[in-house]
């Protein structure tokens, strides 16, 4: 069935109804970003303030989510952690997406040797399991926010490069690109005017999904002690610190774990919702 799904008359395109996953995902992500931003100006207690005498208090006994082994308020740490985790994830994904997309669209536009070499280079980068490359980067650059961002961005590059190269190649096969070429437009211009706008949807969807992955990776890095420097709280380090208290103070592990899960869940839902919203292929089907 080729034609029948398409409108036959200049009918205004109907806005598809908001899908539950878009609403849920959007709400979660919005909530998290608000919390993260709020943490910059307000947290119930300073997230780094220690009250050793108040250590390891259960949720609601002291603060909303209790206190950690140094008597810090977990709720406040989670809030500040939201900012740290999100800011790392967002910068890393944006960086990776920008570099990967640039590589991908260039490969699609140039084809030939450039494509072969850049895609092979992708394979090379992709061959390093992310934690391994993060470990090496950490050893190389020292740990911290910058390293975490770079380490995550590095393995995002091939992901985005592959996706955009594939999507861009499809756009390049379109007649409107031929039309632009016959209008004497160069490959760079066509990439900017036609290719990028037409693959933007796929990139946006992928960004949402990769953000979830980046949060997970950041947590893993922090868990291994390769994340941001203390005292800045991150969810991954909170998890790592909580390990030995699992038996005695399980909320220490539960809270950051749930925060991570909620965030990744939110981003994935958002990604799904965006895909439904933006990808016309899914729409015709039911």
């Amino acid at each position, binding site marked *: 069935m080729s034609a029948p799904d398409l409108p036959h008359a200049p009918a205004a395109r109907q806005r598809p109804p908001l899908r539950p996953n878009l609403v849920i995902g959007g709400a979660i992500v919005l909530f998290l970003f608000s919390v993260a931003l709020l943490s910059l100006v307000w947290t119930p207690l300073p997230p780094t303030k220690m009250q050793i005498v108040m250590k390891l208090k259960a949720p609601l006994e002291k603060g909303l989510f209790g206190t950690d082994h140094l008597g810090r308020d977990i709720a406040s740490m989670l809030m500040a952690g939201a900012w740290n985790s999100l800011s790392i994830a967002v910068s890393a994904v944006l960086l990776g997406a920008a570099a990967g997309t640039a590589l991908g669209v260039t490969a699609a536009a140039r084809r030939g040797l450039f494509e072969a070499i850049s895609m092979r280079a992708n394979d090379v980068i992709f061959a390093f399991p992310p934690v391994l490359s993060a470990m090496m980067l950490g050893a190389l650059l020292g740990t911290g926010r910058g390293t975490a961002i770079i380490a995550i961005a590095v393995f995002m590059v091939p992901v985005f490069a592959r996706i955009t190269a594939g999507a861009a190649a499809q756009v390049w096969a379109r007649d409107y690109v031929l039309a632009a070429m016959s209008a004497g437009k160069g490959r760079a211009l066509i990439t900017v005017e036609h290719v990028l706008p037409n693959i933007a949807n796929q990139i946006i969807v992928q960004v949402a999904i990769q953000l979830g992955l980046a949060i997970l990776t950041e947590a893993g890095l922090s868990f291994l002690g390769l994340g941001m420097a203390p005292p800045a709280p991150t969810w991954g380090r909170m998890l790592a610190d909580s*390990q030995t208290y699992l038996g005695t103070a399980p909320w220490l592990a539960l809270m950051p774990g749930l925060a991570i899960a909620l965030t990744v869940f939110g981003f994935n839902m958002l990604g799904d919702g965006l895909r439904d919203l933006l990808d016309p292929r899914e729409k015709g089907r039911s």
Partner: protein
Amino acid sequence: SALAAPKTSLVLGMNPEPQGLDPTIAAPVAIGQVTWQNIFEGLVAIDRTGKIVPQLAKSWEISPDGLTYTFHLREGVTFHDGQPFNSEAAKFSLDRARGTDSVNPQKRFFAAIDTVETPDANTLVLKLKTRNSSLLSWLGWPASVMVGPKSSVNDKTTPIGTGPFKFVSWAKGDRVELAANPAYWNKDVKLGLDKVTFRFIGDPQAQAAALKSGDVDAFPEFTAPELIASFKDDPKIATVIGNTELKVVAGMNNARKPFSDKRVRQALMMAVDRATVIEGAWSGLGQAIGSHYTPNDRGYIDTTGVHAYDPAKAKALLAEAGYPNGFSFTIKTPQMPYAPRSAEILQAMFAEIGVTMTIEPTEFPAKWVQDVFKSTDYDMTIVAHAEPMDLDIYARDPYYFNYKNPAYNAVLDKIEQTTDAAEQDKLYGEAQTILADDVPALYLFVLPKLGVWNAKLKGLWENEPIPANVLTEVHWEE
């Protein structure tokens, strides 16, 4: 599993795993913790109280000028592979450790030795270039153990010594197995074990689980103080908190401003409430120290009151030193758990007196050795010093503190020259007082030895004058 007859096997948990099994060619403490006194023995040994006791040398004489040591070696001792232990082997061991292509991590121990002579098979004579009152004690260290001339090249993977246990196997990353040595020379020793397994478990949670489930019988050095409480109500498990020589100190770069100003260092010391640091970083286990010396060292005096916790005074002192608004600096913290935890607490405490400390995690040993130890490119760091009675490091030049105090050096020299023990103890006290007052490093606490083991297991060391798992006297008791 509970058997009627007393158990004769032991699974002993450790972290980290040793890197090779030859303590004479690599520094990691874990090597000695597996092999020293179990597989390898020295001319002399250090016992559980820290005393020097005869071992492969049954006795010795030191010439009055202190330059000639004559060791009378035990007879009838053989290595596990049958090589005889005699003066040749002893000479071989010492020469191997001090030779030009030696890779002994403590080669300096043997620097004072001029010649090694073997007048007969059971006599070993060391001629020294200079006096050295530490030599005898050093000969008791893991780096000075006796190795077989024929077997030493393979000691890294298949160690052959003269000790009560023989090496059986090593599953890298997991375990080392030893078995009792039936031909052990010391017939006075009645071994309680015939099979010993060292298991290497890094994660504290896994350590605890292994202990509780009985997969591991003992963790003489448990790594997570916060989990100690969880063993308290388990009658099957004994927790024994002992002493170590591990002094947690936050060393400062005394050559760098503002740490070059003694008042600044003192102010920082006064800003630190050691009790809180111990409570926060190590669950209250551990003992506060005021200088680079532990209560189990001879001549120890309590110097924690010299710059007691007093933030107001600290602030005043800072102002006097020209920093009324505090200052900022960076601490390079290795990843061992005590370091970042202590650093986080210090950070909060310094903030109280207006000093901003940034924490820079620094990978240990690779990057830490490079940055802090080799190139002294740091403001402050925090690390546990493991060597017993290592007051001399403050007199070393270069050493990463960049601390220079001729008065202090003079005291240490005097100790070297003195033979009277009481006099030495007094001098040790003096040295401690100088350090406590000068604060070349912030003295925080001594790490406890967190022994956790099956309540029926007896004979493990409670304290740790030297890092070791000596199994000679370990046995099960019903």
